[in-house]
């Protein structure tokens, strides 16, 4: 109905592999990009910096996790630790006087190097064991960060992050910080989009789907899992650094605890494994849900005249996460992204029932 596809033909292979061959998609992406660019103009700063900005950074982070989970099919329960490594590395680097641009790259590299240590566990075992070893490593990282004062800045301490400086200019305005987040999110997204059409992406999927079949066509599973872990950790590390730089402005160990790992996992699962738009949905859902739920509950509380303890309010969103994960796994294991795709397919073949070639 919305997607008109007649008359789309390609005269070379690169056009045939274009990211968005359907004009309606190109329009949509273009409009969304324009809206994103113009957001500081029409959106009030509160929404911009407390909703839109963290959403973008978390989306980038979730995409990194999706790379390892959805593409390479490797479980990762310690993603927050990886983000934390990046965050601490960037903060320490900038405090040491290293320019921010270089510091975030360093953050990514540090995360990638340490994240690859995680990978070594993954290279030896899979499934449950991988999950457990990444979980164990998350604990080790948590423990190390909070028990080594040189990293955390002392027990229970909060380490202030210096202002972001780009090419020597301090970026302090809400709009400026927002654009930093936007650029990073767009970069990660374009990387992931390209992953879908390159040899690397295909190799990762091959490893995920059938490792023996991957081996007979010459795919070295070991190497590609390592690449996946390193890349995902790089994205996670930089996302962590940017999250601190643009949103929290200070870093503490709790920001990257095991709960945060689970939150990131929930984003990917609720959003949908192995799809790009799903990470946007998942991040939005998980980030917005507690706020929306709390306002709903307080609204309901006043409306129906009951009161809930502060503890209840604090834990309800968590319980809801759990319920959501269970619900999605039972009803739509491929998450919101799959629902979106179903709707899209419904419209793509409209008015027919399915595509027949």
């Amino acid at each position, binding site marked *: 109905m919305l997607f008109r596809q007649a008359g789309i033909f390609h005269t070379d292979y690169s056009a045939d592999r274009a990211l968005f061959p359907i004009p309606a998609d190109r329009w949509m992406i273009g409009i969304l990009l324009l809206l994103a660019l113009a957001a500081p103009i029409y959106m009030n700063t509160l929404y911009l910096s407390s909703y839109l900005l963290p959403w973008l950074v978390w989306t980038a982070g979730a995409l990194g996790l999706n790379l390892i989970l959805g593409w390479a099919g490797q479980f990762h329960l310690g993603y927050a630790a990886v983000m934390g490594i990046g965050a601490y590395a960037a903060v320490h680097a900038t405090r040491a006087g290293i320019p921010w641009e270089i510091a975030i790259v360093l953050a990514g590299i540090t995360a990638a190097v340490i994240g690859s240590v995680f990978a070594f566990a993954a290279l030896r075992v899979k499934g449950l064991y991988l999950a457990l070893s990444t979980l164990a490593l998350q604990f080790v990282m948590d423990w190390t960060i909070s028990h080594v004062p040189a990293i955390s800045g002392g027990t229970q301490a909060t380490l202030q992050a210096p202002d972001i400086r780009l090419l020597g200019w301090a970026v302090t305005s809400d709009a400026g910080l927002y654009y930093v987040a936007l650029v990073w999110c767009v970069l990660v997204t374009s990387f992931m989009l390209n*992953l879908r059409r*390159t*040899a*690397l992406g295909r190799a990762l999927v091959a490893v995920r*789907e059938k490792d023996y*079949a991957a*081996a007979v066509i010459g*795919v*070295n599973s070991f190497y590609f899992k390592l690449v996946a872990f390193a890349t995902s950790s790089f994205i996670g590390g930089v996302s962590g650094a940017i999250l601190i730089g643009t949103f929290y402005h200070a870093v503490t160990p709790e920001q990257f605890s095991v709960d945060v790992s689970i939150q990131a996992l929930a984003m990917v699962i609720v959003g949908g494994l192995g799809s790009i738009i799903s990470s946007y949905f998942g991040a939005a859902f998980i980030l917005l849900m507690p706020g929306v739920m709390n306002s709903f509950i307080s609204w309901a509380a006043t409306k129906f005249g009951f009161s809930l303890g502060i503890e209840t309010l604090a834990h309800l969103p968590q319980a809801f996460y759990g319920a959501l994960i269970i619900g999605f796994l039972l009803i739509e294991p491929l998450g919101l992204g799959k629902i979106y795709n179903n709707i899209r397919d419904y419209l793509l073949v409209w008015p027919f029932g399915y595509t027949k070639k």
Partner: protein
Amino acid sequence: MTLKDRGGDAPVLECRSVERRFSGIVALNGIDMRIERGEIFGLVGPNGCGKTTLTNAITGFYPPQRGHILLNGRDITGLAPHYVATLGVARTFQNLALFNGMSVLDNILLGRHIHMKPSVGRTALYWWLARSDETLNRAAVEDVIDFLQLESVRDELVDGIPIGLKKRVELARALAAEPSFLILDEPMAGMNQEEKEYMARFILDARDERNVTVLLIEHHMDVITGICDRMLALNYGEMIGSGVPADVVADPRVIEAYIGGAHVAR
């Protein structure tokens, strides 16, 4: 082109007294096999006779405990499967091993893996670094698609196409790697007569036009005698006959094993 021009008179594949045991059970015992360049070499035997084990020994999944396997004169015994693939060995599976979530095109493109340079940098900088590589390999894949007449299903998910076509897609993926040695594990299982004939034609064409040497594991005797130059018959991991198909098929030991095997299967 003489044999010498194609890299000497070394056989493409040679197995020297290959032995493989699984927890005490001898699955392969002293297998000697020489496959010459440009041959279509048949491998037959009743179920569980060690055909697939031999394939797995060659491709490195279960390296032999004793004996050697040489590819183009080079000892490949014990090399990792993915490394064996880069040396020019491709194979298909009896029960298909396609990547179901991908399109036919992407599956065949994966066959080009060893010719491509997948990397993070190239992916990130697709427009500058990866596009030409992707395009070149796509062209190679399209040659295979044309060769196996898969145009009409190119963009469909592998999941949704009929089994006969899936078998063809798997052959396409193997051929896309431009192997020098191709192992086909029962490529015609579950096919009707017409599809079988098509497949036989494709195998012959692949040998003639794409210079591959083929090891063909097959149950259908008519196929073996029809297109194989030489063959080897196995039973309980032992060689019970080898040579020109007409002779092997006439060998009483083979007949006994084969009919006996068929009997058991029934």
